[in-house]
């Protein structure tokens, strides 16, 4: 395949940045999208041009480090995959591909396609945990049976990889899907109940403070979420938030 890549280049957080054009040929359909960028970067290095900076690590869709806004979609055209799992067979010979960073006020660009998502960490620090000491002096793991359905639903929520595609896809840059996934995981498990109220209040407040927008139920986040985190989590969090506020 021969492709034309339009890639966002930005020297650092204060630089204005712009789209640059790079032609690339000999792209195999079996390559992953990031392998295609590796090939481009090797070519650029040989020509003495600085390679394109992008985040990635596991390259199997689990660490949440890769991002990229590809042709107007977070993680590109395929569904239920991250950018690192996207393969070139989803594109056609001659295509022009626009590659931009995830954009949101709470995710400032660091360089080229790399953004700063530490706001997500700060939301988790505000309450995304169960306050139990790690000493090992806890009760036996089987002492509280948990209905399989609850355990499975909690697990599904817990599979969020913290990539930020939900924010990048939302016209309001809302982080509701991400935050609700964590809140749901704990609220569905007996271990998370004790602090449930505080947790939801603190995490939601932190989310607002970090500059994420409001949720207007467009559902764009669910469509682009590589892990299929469901909008049900948002409803669950809204319920928790309301009842926590009432009881405050």
């Amino acid at each position, binding site marked *: 395949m021969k492709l034309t890549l339009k890639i966002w280049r930005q020297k650092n957080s204060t630089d204005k940045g712009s789209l640059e054009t790079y032609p690339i040929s000999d792209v195999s359909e079996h390559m992953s999208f990031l392998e295609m960028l590796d090939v481009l970067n090797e070519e650029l290095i040989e020509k003495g041009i600085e390679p394109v900076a992008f985040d990635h690590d*596991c390259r199997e869709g689990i660490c949440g480090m890769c991002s990229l806004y590809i042709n107007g979609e977070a993680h590109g055209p395929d569904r239920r995959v991250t950018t690192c799992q996207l393969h070139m067979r989803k594109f056609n010979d001659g295509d022009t591909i626009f590659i931009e960073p995830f954009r949101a006020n709470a995710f400032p660009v660091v360089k080229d396609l790399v953004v700063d998502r530490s706001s*997500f960490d700060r939301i988790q620090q505000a309450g995304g945990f169960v306050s139990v000491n790690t000493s*090992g002096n806890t009760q036996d793991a089987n002492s509280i049976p948990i209905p399989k359905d609850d355990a499975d639903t909690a697990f599904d929520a817990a599979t969020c990889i913290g990539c930020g595609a939900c924010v990048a896809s939302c016209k309001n840059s809302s982080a509701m899907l991400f935050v609700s996934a964590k809140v749901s995981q704990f609220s569905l498990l007996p271990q998370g109940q004790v602090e449930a109220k505080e947790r939801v209040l603190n995490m939601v407040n932190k989310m607002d403070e970090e500059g994420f927008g409001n949720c207007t139920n467009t559902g764009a986040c669910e469509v682009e979420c590589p892990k299929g985190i469901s909008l049900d989590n948002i409803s669950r969090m809204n319920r928790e938030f309301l009842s926590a506020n009432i009881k405050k």
Partner: protein
Amino acid sequence: MAKLNSGVPKGELKDKWTQYKDSIDLVNPANKRNIDVIVVGTGLAGGSASATLAELGYNVKTFCYQDSPRRAHSIAAQGGINAAKNYQGDGDSTYRLFYDTVKGGDYRSREANVYRLAEVSTNIIDQCVAQGVPFARDYGGLLDNRSFGGVLVSRTFYAKGQTGQQLLLGAYSAMNRQIARGKIKMHNRHEMLDVVLVDGKARGIIARNLVTGEIERHSAHAVVIASGGYGNVYFLSTNAMGSNTTAAWKIHKKGAFFANPCYTQIHPTCIPRSGDYQSKLTLMSESLRNDGRIWVPKNMDDVKALREGTLKATNIKEEDRDYYLERRYPAFGNLVPRDVASRAAKERCDAGYGVNQTGEAVYLDFSSAITRYGKEQALLKGEDENNHQLVKKLGQEIVKSKYGNLFQMYEKIVDENPYETPMMIYPAVHYTMGGVWVDYNLMTTVPGLYAIGEANFSDHGSNRLGASALMQGLADGYFVLPYTIGDYLSDDIRTGSISTDSPEFDEAENNVNKLLDQLINNKGKHSVDYYHKKLGKIMWDKCGMARTETGLKQAIKEIKELREDFWKNVIVPGNRNELNKELEKAGRVADFLELGELFAKDALTRNESCGGHFREEYATKEGEAKRDDKNFTFVSAWEYAGEPSEAKLHKEELEFENIAVKERSYK
């Protein structure tokens, strides 16, 4: 030759840890507030250690190269974590987990450490459940288990194919709680580039801020390395792209002995490579061998037809399939340990029976399991168990519920539906049993410098059993190090904070600056990846699944030449004072180019086959690994002496008092 002191306490094996814990010095809570500990790494080992040390009251400074601690490579672990809970009532016990691990490691690990690991394994599960880790449960609401290779019980706890993710997020949440309290200062996007020793003790590190390029000094009373394994020395592996040996290697150069570098695990079930552009390999979890059967065709004609695309795997008749693991190892069948399964796959492919274009793939087939589960479901639902369509559909649903994310991953990469056609798999580099030498306290040969998790060598001998790395990482971090480190730090309660304004810090920082300048100013003609790929090829061809004396000697020579070429001709674009991913890679590859040489030397010195280390010269008639217990029942701990291959060998003799050392048989 100097003897290493493992510091294993006296007493009965089963009492050692408890008695030892009771006897070690403690630091009182008020004093802990005046003591700083640096932890490099936020995987299961570093994450759990950071959280626990902070909770105990120490001031913790933690580092990782990713943009968040939650992204450490542990996140990618799939299949599960072992613990001797015996919830299934199938005869499991601490002793059995200990026994399986020592045997699985081909009698090359330290008994006392392994026993302790087995002992604390049960706490891990309790701890994680209390943290809200959503492990898989059965319909009664209790925890479910599966089996992994090399054992005859079901002791593996799991969260679908995302066990590592769930456990790491548990440790990350425990860290977050301490970060919020200010007890952990987290340094994301920072890379440790050297350790600083003051009066022979580890007192700090030099780190590069990967966003600004700034070189920073950080001091502490003790330094813990939890930087993971070095599988990426092969270029292609199942490790994350950034996994590296830099932290471990830098401390080696400052005096920490490096143990058994040649013990690497080649995992039997990974997706085969597809082209030169390949950047990494993807694991298909060992848990799949619970339900998948491995085979190649019996007839060469079928192999040819498969490769030409004129025949489909599903059309090969049952009697024309060679389920070679079931044939060779009837007792363990598809669940033999990884080293055995990998070599068996290589044997069939070398004999010409590989099923894909490259000849390097075998089948992992789920059709029997789908039928078995489907019939069971049909019966349960009162439907016709002879209705093939229905049985297949019901069976596929069960398989999906167990391995859904793995099947999806496979389909996305290979573009084939594994519910309909067998998966193609081939062995790939996965884990490194070797690592920094540590004593019973998990301290390296440098006082105050610790190594935990995959970065150390401690528990898995020459072959790790599946689902035991997660167990070790969390055992080290939650339950072992936080105790043992107190023994050392109790001497430091009056030291006061360590200044970074000292000649030792100056020198370490200067060295780091020099190295980075050299890389940036080199302006050669080949990229970092060019060298990394070349190194990977030498390693795979000569230090891979089968090793020979001649090959290893060549490898040492070739790696040395490649390293010289690297320093003459590598090009690193951009500058030092900015985010520069090529510069990060260059530093890591420079270290791999040294480690690789020591690796080959270690493999050359070990004139026997054991676990993952297979020397063709030392094999039984049936092609199994042949140990030489008389001459090689020791840990090779290497002391740095200038050039990697000039390293000096120290031996820690291994004594087995509680297990009879036998030939390892899975037949």
